[in-house]
């Protein structure tokens, strides 16, 4: 039972990640590999505030969202000048810089969270407290799952309202023809900055949820593999609508769990899982560029 609850929490977390990434990739048409970096920044910000300053979940997540929104300019500003492959490369640079900063911002003799040892480098942060929401702490697996589902539901609701709003339609217009949208007098650059900032601040919530669930965080959550995994989710599930990323998150979380029943040795199982992700990406591009349930294909 606890195993299923654990999976459900993972599903909630990745639904938030995939839905927010869809706002950038599916609605703005900008393929980014840096999203996992913002996910990790959200997690680290929450962990440091909760662990060192004893902040509750709501204020810590609010600060994490703000930090990610400001740092999201690193992805949004290059999109003014770069298109296609070169934009992807720019996001890859951002991802590498975030990973490098998290991995290296440590010093062995200083306490965790001080200016010299902010992230504890490759050792990561342990003992992250459970979330405390105005004095209530979801300590049992069931209550934490409910809490995660409520958080994912509210993030999903916000994104759903945004995508259905005139603002969301404007994003689609910019994605399909930026010049025409500009011709109508829309400030397309500012709208893109807004979209990337919103997506990055929402993924910070997912990072905080992950940190408080696993209670341990290391730089691997900002790694390129993680970035590729979340990008696979939205591409396999489908871009440009609300259900696609949810389907993608479900498929890519369910798949490795199904592989467990094949009783492969542990090392082979991890390789096989990634092999399937890779092949899925290739097959999707050939036979179903829209993804399983998407409305927009990668250009």
């Amino acid at each position, binding site marked *: 039972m606890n195993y299923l609850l654990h999976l459900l929490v993972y599903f909630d977390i990745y639904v938030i990640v995939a839905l927010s990434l869809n706002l950038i990739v599916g609605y703005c048409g900008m393929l980014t590999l840096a999203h996992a970096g913002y996910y990790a920044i959200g997690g680290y910000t929450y962990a440091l505030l909760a662990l060192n300053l004893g902040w509750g979940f709501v204020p810590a997540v609010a600060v994490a969202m703000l930090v990610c929104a400001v740092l999201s300019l690193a992805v949004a500003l290059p999109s003014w*000048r*770069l298109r*296609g492959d070169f934009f*992807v*490369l720019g996001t890859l640079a951002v991802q590498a*810089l975030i990973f490098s900063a998290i991995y290296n911002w440590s010093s062995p003799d200083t306490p965790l969270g001080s200016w010299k040892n902010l992230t504890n480098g490759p050792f990561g942060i342990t003992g992250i407290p459970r979330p405390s929401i105005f004095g209530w702490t979801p300590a049992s697996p069931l209550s934490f799952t409910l809490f995660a589902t409520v958080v994912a539901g509210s993030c999903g609701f916000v994104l759903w309202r945004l995508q259905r709003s005139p603002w969301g339609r404007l994003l689609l217009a910019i994605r399909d023809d930026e010049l025409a949208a500009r011709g109508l007098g829309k400030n397309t650059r500012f709208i893109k900055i807004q979209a990337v900032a919103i997506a990055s601040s929402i993924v910070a919530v997912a990072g905080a949820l992950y940190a408080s669930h696993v209670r341990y965080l290391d730089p691997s959550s900002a790694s390129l593999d993680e970035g*590729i995994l979340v990008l696979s989710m939205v591409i396999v599930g489908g871009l440009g609508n609300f259900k696609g990323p949810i389907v993608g998150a479900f498929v890519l979380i369910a798949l490795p769990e199904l592989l467990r029943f094949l009783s492969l040795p542990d090392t082979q199982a991890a*390789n096989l899982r990634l092999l399937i992700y*890779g092949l899925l*990406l290739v097959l999707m591009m050939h036979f179903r560029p829209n993804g399983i349930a998407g409305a927009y294909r990668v250009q």
Partner: protein
Amino acid sequence: MQILINGLISGSAIALLAVAFQAVYLPTRVFFMGLAGIYAATPFIAYSCQHHGLPWPLSIAAAAVAAIGLSWLFEWANHAPLARKKAGEGVHLVSSLGLYIATVQIVAMIWGNDPKTLRIGLDYVSRFDGLVITGAQWITFTVGAVALSGFAFFLRRSNLGLRLRAMADNPVQFALFGYNVNAHRYLAFGLCGAFAAAASLVTAYDIGFDPHGGLHAVLLAVVAVIVGGQGSFLGPVLGGMILGILRTQVVWHFSARWQEAATFGLLAVFLMLRPQGILGRETRLEASK
């Protein structure tokens, strides 16, 4: 001086891979991430051949043939069908990324995840005037110099090289003149495989290899391409040298752990301030497509 020499030599390994990337990117506009898979798989072929008692020239030849074959396989199975469907660059990039992931996992499942080396025993060292150069560095330097100058000669002097440059300039016009674009695509992918094998084998001989090193090496190569100039075949050589020198200087003055930050910081600076690279002409990026 020692640091500069080290930088130039490690830069020539980066330059080899950057030329491999550019050999595909310029004529076909495919952002070939599958290259990372080829880079990762090649030394394992040489390693297996060596362990089955083949002499080293045959092992290297077998690895190079395997790399070229793998490159052709990727073109035949993935990029050529997508190009026929007029797929966009994002589709090529994502499917190529998928191929890379799949190749690396197959390599890891066959040969295991742990690092290996092609060299047996210690390397010999030669000294001049206080400069220390290892045997592996000599090999890297020689292979880099021969392969890169050979490629430059091929591009400038041979008819085939001229056609490759023509295709890079304007593929539609090239096809209209009656040249077989598909055959020239295979030429481009073949060259890419050969350069990837060279880059991969010299690095594997020098510092060893594992299945997961490919993507990092290709990312360095792509940074070299951007820095050197993404519109030219040989700009990446300059980019590779600059990157090699920068990375060794960072190790010397700060610490090896800031190498990545410096590399990608340089990329960010170039993308923002001079996206056409050092040797590139000043055009909008999308205008060159």
